[in-house]
């Protein structure tokens, strides 16, 4: 593991208010890349951000940035800029002075401060806002000012803590694009925190899932959606169908149907996303639709076969009504056998490399390995 130019957190233990939130967490963000830390509320994401930024004391562990150890430095000496969920602008200063705050702290002269602040505002699409007061700005505009302010610091690491959470969907989309564009243009090492898995997938070159104070899978976004290392990861990323059974001779028997499951015999769990479950004309997997809910993009079907439940997302035009008898198909290349014995909520190896430990059925069955975009 190396952190040359990037961020390396090693065995961090943090207990804000005496409550152990992080227990030996390790994380690496490669230089110039964008990693998204995703997880449910209470997982410890913000605590990790605060610990890296120097706002929360470490009980143990090390933080390295651009090759130097920084966990002993005060927050203002770490060369880390943070955009928080709420913009946290200084209300007694105008937009330009807010953006230039970091330059003022560094002793940069007034003229240069002004020029660089205006350039920063241009970069985030607020070119004409330099003379404005912060009070009259919308939430999205304030968050852009906060981003410009963070960029003005020219930090070694940019961290964003749920920066889009307080915005409406359209503003969120705009700011998401802006963050990705600016990060790519500047080649900034960036760590973004969110609880939204779709946002994580869109923003992250790498995504780290955090559960209960630990990183349980750190990989490319697609791997977390399609090749989860545990049932807990699968559930977080919307893999509603976890099919438990016993594998014998390369097949798992589930609801009376044999599903291809390469690997050793024994208890196992197959995972398949609802988007990958298909309606078929005929086949062995007959089920009764108990729920059909239109969600805007698709119809969410819940089908029962005896005590066994399957969820499928189908196009509205093809969706059968509740009560209908349907035939479902689970494409072999979309089935993923979870590593380990069955539906353990274990945390996997915590630092996946894209291969996971599971067996990709597409390879076993000879089908092309081209999983559909799960998003």
């Amino acid at each position: 593991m190396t952190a040359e130019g990037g961020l390396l957190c090693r065995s961090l233990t943090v207990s804000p208010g005496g409550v152990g939130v992080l227990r030996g967490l390790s994380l690496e963000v490669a230089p110039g890349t964008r990693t998204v830390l995703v997880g449910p509320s209470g997982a410890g994401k913000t605590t990790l951000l605060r610990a890296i930024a120097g706002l929360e004391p470490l009980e143990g562990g090390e933080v390295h940035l651009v090759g130097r150890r920084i966990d002993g430095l005060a927050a203002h000496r770490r060369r880390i800029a943070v955009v928080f969920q709420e913009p946290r602008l200084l209300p007694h200063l105008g937009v330009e002075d807010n953006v230039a705050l970091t330059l003022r702290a560094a002793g940069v002269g007034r003229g240069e401060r002004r020029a660089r602040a205006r350039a920063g505002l241009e970069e985030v699409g607020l070119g004409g806002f330099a003379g404005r007061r912060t009070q009259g700005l919308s939430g999205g505009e304030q968050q852009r000012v906060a981003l410009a302010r963070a960029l003005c610091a020219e930090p070694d690491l940019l961290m964003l803590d749920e920066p889009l959470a307080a915005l409406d969907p359209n503003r969120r989309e705009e700011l998401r694009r802006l963050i990705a564009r600016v990060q790519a243009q500047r080649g900034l090492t960036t760590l973004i925190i969110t609880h939204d898995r779709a946002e994580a997938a869109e923003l992250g070159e790498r995504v780290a899932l955090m559960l209960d104070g630990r990183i349980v899978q750190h990989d490319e976004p697609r791997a977390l959606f399609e090749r989860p290392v545990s049932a807990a990861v699968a559930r977080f990323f919307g893999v509603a169908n976890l099919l438990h059974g016993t594998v014998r001779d390369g097949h798992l028997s589930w609801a009376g149907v044999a599903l291809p499951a390469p690997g050793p015999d024994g208890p196992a769990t197959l995972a398949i996303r609802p988007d990958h479950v298909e309606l078929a004309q005929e086949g062995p997997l007959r089920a009764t639709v108990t729920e059909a809910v239109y969600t805007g993009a698709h119809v969410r079907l819940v089908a029962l076969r005896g005590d066994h439940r399957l969820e499928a997302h189908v196009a509205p035009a093809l969706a059968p009504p509740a009560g209908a008898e349907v035939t479902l198909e689970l494409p072999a290349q979309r089935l993923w056998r979870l590593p380990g014995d069955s539906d353990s909520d274990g945390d996997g190896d915590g630092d996946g490399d894209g291969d996971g430990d599971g067996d990709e059925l597409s390879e076993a069955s000879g089908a092309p390995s081209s999983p559909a975009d799960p998003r």
Partner: protein
Amino acid sequence: MSGLHASRRWRDRALVAPAVSVLALLFGGAVAGMLKTSLVPLGADGLSGATLDTWRELLGDPAFVDALVFSLRVTVLATAASAALAVPVAVALRRRGLAIRSLAALPLPVPHLLVAVAAVLWLGAGGLADRLLGGLPVNLVRDDAGVGIVLVYVFRETPFLVLLMLAAMGRGLQERTEAAAVLGASPGQRALWVLWPTIRGPLVVGSIIVGAFVLGAFEVPLAVGPSYPPTLATFAFDATQGSVLAGEGLAAATLLLTSTIAVALAVAAVRFARDAEGA
């Protein structure tokens, strides 16, 4: 845009008009009454008998000048000391729990006169401390410099200013301070750019209230102040005791001047608060 601003300005004025009207009626009525009393001697025939004799007598009285200087000194010292002490106390208390904050606010409900009487009982010549310790190194009660008066007001008014600042600090100060820290602002810069703009308003407004109160109150100077010089308030009080005929006019003129000084100090303080811009 300017039309919108003008409209907002008029709307804001309309909103505060009822409160301003009540204040103008009460304060303005009192001022008008004092002005009449200071100009029209007792028994004179209406406003036609108005004269500036009382004002001439007042301004020519060396005791009044001494009282004015003494009052201003005590007011400025008590207010400045309370404010200077309140800032570090508020900063220290801001992360403390309710119990400790309540303890710090304990002097607030205690009447000034009670504090002054306790000071006399404990710190006066022949008081409890004098007897317990066999003598006191300094004389704080009825001392010529008015240190006793200042200390009573500092004890009583510092918690008031602390509470005002704690209320202001509760509104996002911690978050803004953290934001400034991760942007590279040192502790000193954070105090100047984040803490000071947050507490400046309540500190100035609170100090105006404290200053105006200290300038006009007479019970503490009567209890722990020197026999001479008096404060303006005790000077006015003494005037009513000394001369039945001219005393009311002198007292009214004195209090009118006291009010004018208090308003002038308040205006100056508000202007300072508006111009500081946190730098």
